[in-house]
């Protein structure tokens, strides 16, 4: 079918699409060029600054990089092990704590109070202080039957600290679920606990996955604190190498290895969240 100007239906629909494709391609090209130009200029300015050779030999030294990398990677395995165990414990304990915090019945007031005090205390104290007190202080008391193993106490200290942060994240998720959800569930005959478990909690947890990932990465970085108690993890190994040679490149190695862990984790979580949203929003957005 031709219209007044002789264009077919196919012409009318394909013409704007072609120019749209062209403008999209142009946009991509412009983006690439401008990024290369800007970062290229910044890079050129840095590399040509007067202190660059000294800075490069002290912080970006390639020989030192490859020399220290194997041992630092071994130390990183300790960080990863600690992180996996601690994160699993934190996710569970924090949920329990958030649940305790969210109890509304007056008879549960002591439990709520305990949760509030716990969260305030462990959020307010610096992690390093808690590690020292638990790692050195409690073994010093020589209480019979209580282990003085530094790994146990380091794990306990990290879990205690991060449970407080993550419990608040869970609580914000729980509070963000609209009250109508609970009202509807109760009117269907679900008990208080069933409402929480089957209606509120699934929605709450899905909403707070990005902040949970935030705290997971924070815990990952905090595992470096176990070095204060003796274990040689990635950053301590980097420190030993750095002090032995007065070169800071080992710290760069440790930092890059950490990024290699956290960045793919972030992308994976982004993907999982996007997939989940697509499922329950069903094309609404």
């Amino acid at each position: 079918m031709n219209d007044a100007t002789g264009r077919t239906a196919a012409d009318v629909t394909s013409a704007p699409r072609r120019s749209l494709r062209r403008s999209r391609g142009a946009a991509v090209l412009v983006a690439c060029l401008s990024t290369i130009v800007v970062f290229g200029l910044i890079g050129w300015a840095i590399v040509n600054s007067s202190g660059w050779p000294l800075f490069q030999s002290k912080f970006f030294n390639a020989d030192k990089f490859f020399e220290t990398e194997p041992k630092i990677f071994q130390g990183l395995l300790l960080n990863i092990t600690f992180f996996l165990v601690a994160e699993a414990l934190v996710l569970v304990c924090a949920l329990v704590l958030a649940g305790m915090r969210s109890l509304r019945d007056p008879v549960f007031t002591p439990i709520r109070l305990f949760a509030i005090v716990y969260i305030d205390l462990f959020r307010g104290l610096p992690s390093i202080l808690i590690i020292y007190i638990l790692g050195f202080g409690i073994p010093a008391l020589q209480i019979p039957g209580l282990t003085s193993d530094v790994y146990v106490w380091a794990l306990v200290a990290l879990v205690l600290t991060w449970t407080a942060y993550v419990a608040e994240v869970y609580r914000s998720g729980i509070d963000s679920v609209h009250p109508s959800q609970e009202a509807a569930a109760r009117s269907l005959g679900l008990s208080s606990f069933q409402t929480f478990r089957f209606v509120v909690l699934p929605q709450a947890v899905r909403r707070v996955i990005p902040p949970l990932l935030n705290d997971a990465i924070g815990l990952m970085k905090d595992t470096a604190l176990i070095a204060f108690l003796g274990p040689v993890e990635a950053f301590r190994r980097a420190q030993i190498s750095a002090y032995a040679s007065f070169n800071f490149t080992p710290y760069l190695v440790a930092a890059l290895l950490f990024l290699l862990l956290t960045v793919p984790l972030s992308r994976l979580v982004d993907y999982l969240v996007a997939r989940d949203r697509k499922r329950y929003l069903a094309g609404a957005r």
Partner: protein
Amino acid sequence: MERSRSLLDRAAIIPIAACALLFGSTLGVTAQSPEASMDAASMAPAASMAPAVIGPECAKEALVLKNPGRLTLSTDTPAYSPWWAGTAPADSEWAGEFSGYPPAGEGYEGAMSAAIAAALGFTPDETDWIPNTVFENAFAPGPKAFDFHLAQISIKPERAEAVDFSDPYFDSNQAVVALAANAVTKATTMAELKDFKLGAAVGTTSLAFIEDVIQPNTEVSVFNDNATLVQALQNGQVDGLVADLYSGIYMKDVQLSDAVIAGRFDSTQQIDQMGMVFEKGSALTPCVDEALAVIKANGTLQSIYDQWIGGGAAVPVYQ
């Protein structure tokens, strides 16, 4: 627009990859680590041909000092015995239960530095002291706030690339400190030590000794400073700690309860020579070396040794 945005996101990988390549090439191409210029004079102890007298180029007025007319010295805080002694006044930065008072000129390093200052023509009133809290700061590269620093710092080649050292003023061995009840006290050879959990402070030659020479089967425990190291030993979280013999004696006597020196290492396995630390290229180093030669030659250093170190080391040697 959704599709063009995701296309942009994906296409943005190109410039990011380009930047990564740029970064990688700066690592590779400009990877010329500066040649370490080993300053032979600051490494080897001076031959004993040095005259035991201060030459005219080291006269007090001719010295190049951070604060002209005053000698600026430094040591670590807390200033542990037997290297430093004396009691600091309550408001002093040196005050503390375990710390000596450097301006008092007591203790092995305290008395020696006072003797060197006197040989160069400085009275205690003309000497300033800077407390240092991080052990590695002393021998890290860069300009210093002090004329020289002494805190049981061992002369090592990597350190000598960053700073200048004086001639050695003390030879020390490493030793193992342990609680009397611990099984490590039964070990008599280096091989037997491998089965125990040992600890040391970061940045020390003790740590390097454990890792390079003893090479235990369990990972060594590393601590930020001697205070936490001693606490870990007291708690039983390490079987033994390695430190230089005389610091170990102090830890055993004062800081620990029920501790012993389990054994020490002899000079074939390891010997640490302690030296004073100067800024790289300092003009003061030869003059202090001359002053040190003077107090060695006239017996002052030996009497300081007898007074503050004394016998001390009737300790079994690891085979």
